[in-house]
């Protein structure tokens, strides 16, 4: 029961973009998806991910190195020069926060669909979320000063713990179920995949109509930042990993893990810290847009990665 309640709280953070009923649906979706992902894993997979910690280390570097930097660069090269909005500095602040939060759990789903290293993805998500307690405020501190802002925030550890527990418990349960019955595990995994597929259009379908107005009134520099953050993060992390000669499967994992940040967490943090600020809507702008577009970007990237994986798959003739 505890797992269910905690998960509920995590999803409740998306209150700004979804209503109660949709929240419940999303909750169920995520539960099933995470169960399913867990059922695709064995303790051996985690052992391997930890035995070669390079992936985790590189993922840490790209997560907290590339993402906040990308946000900063996009702000100073696109947002500031081309935006005519008055509260542009607040939009920039939102973008910085979005770039500084840790990886989100949807990265696990996309890694799974991309035929990446799911165990590594889960380990990276947990790792970056733990580190976020220090690294998110640190990144924000550094870059907001560079922007001439004097912002600081702290994340309540509780927020992070919720994310981690909400990830570990269903994944662990999924693994346990597979251990007990490979058949139930495989059915769960398949269901997780189906729900994962439905999850993407569902998220878009509930997001777009509600925020139609927002989409029409937002100016292009903000779009560039919201879309660019995830896209640039994925591309740079991918080639960075390739440069370090990581296995393509791990490079795909790190790319998605880096580019996909925890949108709901960013939104929750902003709501918690700036709820009394009259410009809170402006701060929320990039995280809200990012949360929509990252799903679309990741879907496209996943299609590319899947093709690459199929092309790299060993082709053998018929045996005998």
């Amino acid at each position: 029961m505890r797992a269910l309640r905690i998960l509920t709280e995590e999803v409740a953070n998306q209150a700004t973009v979804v209503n109660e009923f949709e929240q419940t649906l999303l909750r169920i979706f995520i539960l099933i998806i995470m169960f399913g992902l867990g059922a695709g894993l064995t303790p051996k997979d985690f052992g391997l991910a930890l035995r070669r910690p390079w992936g985790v280390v590189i993922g840490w570097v790209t997560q907290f190195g590339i993402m906040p930097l990308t946000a900063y660069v996009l702000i100073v090269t696109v947002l500031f020069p081309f935006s005519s909005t008055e509260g542009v500095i607040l939009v920039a602040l939102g973008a910085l926060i979005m770039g500084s939060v840790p990886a989100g759990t949807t990265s696990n789903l996309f890694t799974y669909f991309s035929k990446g290293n799911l165990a590594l993805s889960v380990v990276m998500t947990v790792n970056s979320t733990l580190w976020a307690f220090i690294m998110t405020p640190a990144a924000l501190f550094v870059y907001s000063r560079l922007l001439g802002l004097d912002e600081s925030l702290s994340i309540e550890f509780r927020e992070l713990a919720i994310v981690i527990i909400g990830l570990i418990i269903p994944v662990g349960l999924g693994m346990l179920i597979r251990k007990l019955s490979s058949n139930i595990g495989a059915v769960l995994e398949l269901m997780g995949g189906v729900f994962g597929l439905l999850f993407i259009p569902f998220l878009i379908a509930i997001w777009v109509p509600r925020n139609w107005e927002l989409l029409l009134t937002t100016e292009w520099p903000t779009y560039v930042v919201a879309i660019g953050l995830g896209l640039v993060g994925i591309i740079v992390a991918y080639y960075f990993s390739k440069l370090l000669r990581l296995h393509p499967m791990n490079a795909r994992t790190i790319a998605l893990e880096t580019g996909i940040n925890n949108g709901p967490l960013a939104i929750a943090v902003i709501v918690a810290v700036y709820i009394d600020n009259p410009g809170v809507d402006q701060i929320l702008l990039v995280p809200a847009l990012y949360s929509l577009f990252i799903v679309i970007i990741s879907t496209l990237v996943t299609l590319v990665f899947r093709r690459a994986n199929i092309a790299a798959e060993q082709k053998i003739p018929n045996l005998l």
Partner: protein
Amino acid sequence: MTNTPWLAHYPSDVPKQLPPVSFANLPELLRTAAAQYEKTTAFTQVMPNGMNGSLTYAQVDQLSDQFASYLREDLGLVAGDRVAVQMPNCLSYPIVAFGIFKAGCVLVNTNPLYTANEMIHQFSDSGATTLVVIDMFADRLPAVLAKTNVKNVVTVKISEFFPSVVGGVVRIVQKYWQRSLPKIQVEHTRFSAALASGKAKLSKEKVLGYTASVKSESLAALQYTGGTTGVSKGAMLSHGNLVTNTLQMIAHCGDGMRAGKEIVLTALPLYHIFAFTVNLLGFYYNGARNILIPSPRPPSNLRRAFDNYKITWLSGVNTLFNALLNERWFQDAPPKHLHASAAGGMALQASVAERWRELTGTPIVEGYGLTETSPVLTFNLLTGLAKDGTIGIPVPSTEVKCVDENGKDVAVGVAGEIVARGPQIMLGYWQKPEETAKSLKDGWFYTGDIAQMDADGYFTIVDRKKDMILVSGFNVYPNEIEEQIAAVPGVLEVGVIGVPDEKTGERVQAYVKAGLPAPTKEAIVALCRTNLAAYKIPQDVIFVDELPKSPIGKILRRTLRDEAMSLNSSGNNASKGA
């Protein structure tokens, strides 16, 4: 008296002669195993995503009795009637195959990937009246059945005997995601209905009576062979052939195959004689749990099987072992419980064998045999001396020797055609007395393979006899020349054949698929000159985009020869015309 130096190398756990066989036919062997291992899991079919179904020895025994009853009581078949079976590895396969034997009928294994023409040839040649087919491939039936004697069709689902929910999910995925279930347009009976009907009419006395007249020399299977070298013909394998070869193979493994303890991965298709005798019959009799893989392509399909089961034994072909060695998940976590592996079907490359031993820390041995020999003739020893690059020594109660063109034994170390004698040699080719006479002489089977035996009695394959080139009376083996040419930088693939030549009878012609940097004819000939006798040097080197290959990736020299001949004759005609 045959020279048998290998007997000295038999380790203490391998008998020099097979003890007298107590089973009159295959059903007796199968029932003995079922009684002994009753409640143990006999077969587990594992899908690429890990979904699975299992049957115990007792279930396999009962269900195959039911199928035998269906064949005899419902379809009215009699002993000796041929039943064609066309399905990938799945739980239904052992039930169908064993049921056919228990009905006293004859099993005709058919590759599910066959084209309509190949199916027509095999069904009509064998005279099969009944076909058991996987529903995924039933779309070809209307075109095929009209041209054969097949009257009864039984269709099998890939998910047969899976837990119902899991089986339902597999069905839904097949139907709506993979769209691999065609509408079956011929009259057919579902396998489950056939079993139910057989069960209703089943009695112990009746089912035992079906095989009362089936003896060791009775026909058990028509196993078709020769598809790549000529018209496919049916090797007649008797109950005695299959029973003894099963026992010979087990005996030869010694302690390398532990009764009642093995979990064997069957990724090779059971319709092929290698997996049929070694995996299906051998490991069933030995009380193993058999993990059946419907499709090992791509090799990642095997991952869940290795993840979820403690695989102790693996039989395969070079391609499979090499593919597994190249899979990252396999390198990362090689099977911990593996005990031994056996390779057949094609040459096991020394590099693959070495890498396999290094990664898994377990032995892998190569063996040799043919469809006509049920199939096992020789194997390297799991618990004794194994020599890489050789096909090992003859299994117990088997004589093997190399002979020259006149059928005279050749000396140790001299190449000659392998001939073999033993209880596993087929009865002959189905309705082909001339072909039979060509291959079976005085109880010796002429394999058509050229090999040499060393002083220890280990055999090494040199080449196929059919591919041998005769240049000015000298024997030239294409393998030897191909090996040289393959070493030239930029040569991707090579096939060497002989073409008629006015002066020398035949001359050597090489076909090369070039990569980068593109090799020159001069470089190829130069290398051959340094390493080969003059008569072996290719006179022509022809660069091609693709070399013809069999479905399993062997280069088809026969097709190359046919192409060369037709080019020659058309060239001649053209010159005449001009």
